[in-house]
């Protein structure tokens, strides 16, 4: 499903955020990216979403080499991917409902489908009743949950989650993890960058550890450290 082959990413010509990284993620796997702050976790997720191109190496997603992809095909790639961004990236002048609905509108879902699915998903992440709020009328954790809802509302093939529980209390975070596990069970490949040792240790999934841009560990059924 996802393959990195000797990928190096250098920002602005001098910040090497990822050095010669390779791994292979089969369809349906759940994988944790761990490592200290600034080690390159978000960079990997950005490469998979074609937010950036690597300076060296190839990135394969859903059978396609996305470095060689035409610009016009990028939107189609992104629609197969659900993204939970570290800084949420919500549309500030859309309501909670509209933010989540946007991911469905982009793939051309008719209105009645949107009206039915969005409230359902918002209910799952515990935001029922907050549909009409704007992002800046929400707490940090609530905004994060909106971004979680948007990422999987269109049932993507792949889910890229950057710290999806960073601003959540343990109980709510656990709820989100249960959700991700359920989504993973339906065949969605999930790559999640996290700092939460408790979660990583309790789930016992594959763990890829980074340190200053280098993959230093790749362990099935791993723990945080």
């Amino acid at each position, binding site marked *: 499903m996802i393959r990195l082959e000797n990928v190096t990413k250098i920002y602005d010509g001098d910040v090497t955020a990822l050095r010669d990284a390779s791994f292979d993620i089969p369809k349906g796997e759940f994988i944790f990216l761990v490592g200290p702050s600034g080690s390159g976790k978000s960079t990997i997720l950005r490469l998979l979403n074609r*937010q950036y191109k690597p300076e060296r190496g190839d990135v394969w997603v859903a059978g396609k080499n996305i470095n060689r992809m035409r610009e016009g095909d990028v*939107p189609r790639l992104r629609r197969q991917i659900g993204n939970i961004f570290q800084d949420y*990236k919500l549309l500030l*002048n859309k309501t909670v409902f509209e933010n989540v609905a946007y*991911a469905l509108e*982009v793939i051309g879902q*008719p209105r009645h489908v949107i009206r039915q699915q969005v409230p359902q998903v918002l209910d799952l992440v515990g935001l029922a009743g907050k549909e009409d709020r704007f992002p800046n009328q929400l707490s940090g954790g609530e905004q994060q949950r909106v971004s979680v809802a948007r990422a999987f509302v269109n049932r993507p093939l792949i889910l890229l989650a950057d710290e999806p529980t960073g601003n959540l209390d343990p109980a709510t975070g656990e709820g989100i993890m249960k959700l991700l596990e359920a989504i993973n069970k339906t065949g969605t490949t999930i790559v999640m960058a996290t700092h939460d040792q408790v979660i990583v240790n309790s789930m016992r999934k594959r763990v890829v550890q980074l340190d200053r841009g280098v993959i230093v560990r790749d362990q099935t059924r791993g723990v945080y450290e």
Partner: protein
Amino acid sequence: MLSRVGYALRETWQGFQRNWTLTAASVLTAAVSLLLAGVSFFIQKAFDQVLEQWSNNVQFVVFMQPDATDDQVAAVRSTLEDQQASGIVREAPYTDKTASYEEFRRLFATNPTVRDTLTEEEMPTQFKVAPASEDSVVINNLIGQFRGRPGVLDVRSPAEYVKVISKLSGFIRWVTTALWIVLLGTAVGLIWNTIRTAMFARRREIEVMKLVGATNWFIRIPFMLEGLIQGLIGSAIASASLVGLNVIWTGRIRSVTAGLSNVKDLALVHFIVGSGYVGSIVVRLIVLGALAGAAGAGIAASRFLDV
């Protein structure tokens, strides 16, 4: 497909409501710019009319001897009629002794001594020839054809006047064209500017849309519709202002010219632009506003689309 249209319309409407500082700014700029454009069309039309009138006034006079025979007069007339037929001369009315005498007395109303020295019988008759061209070379050539013909006393053209009118109308065409280009250029520049600034304020929004998988057109269309509607509202305001200005303008000219027969010579009434033409300006403004708004927004959005 229908859901796409619905989506685009809803998006547009929300863009309006939620960014209304930007919306107001865009609409205002569009209105001002289009008004400038409209005024430039208006000025050009008004001066075109006046220039047309002026060039109608360029003429030379073929004086017949007071004792010229009817045949001699008829010969000159027939030449002039040929020239009229071939389009070199626009018109060439003949003024007989009575009419010449009346004009003489009118011209010398302020100078009674002179006024009373000549009798009607002594007046020369004349053809007032209005050439089709304002060009003084063409006119001089024309004059040469009459000078020295039998029965012709003299051919006189107010040479200076011809030169002045010819130069002046060239000058005024130049000024109004320059004004037109500057005002229209300004209008386009301002609209473009405002749209770009508004897009700049919304660049993060655009970035997020791209990251969620929206195609460029999916993002652009609501912005373009928004621009289109802003342009339309702007042009509506501009059109209303222009129509209002035209009413005031026409009223002022009417009141200035009221009861002044002499004013005709100043061609002032020709500054009045007919409401038909104003209507055509309004149509142009609306098309221009809609196009500039939509295209401008589409292009400006593109700048922020490469994520």
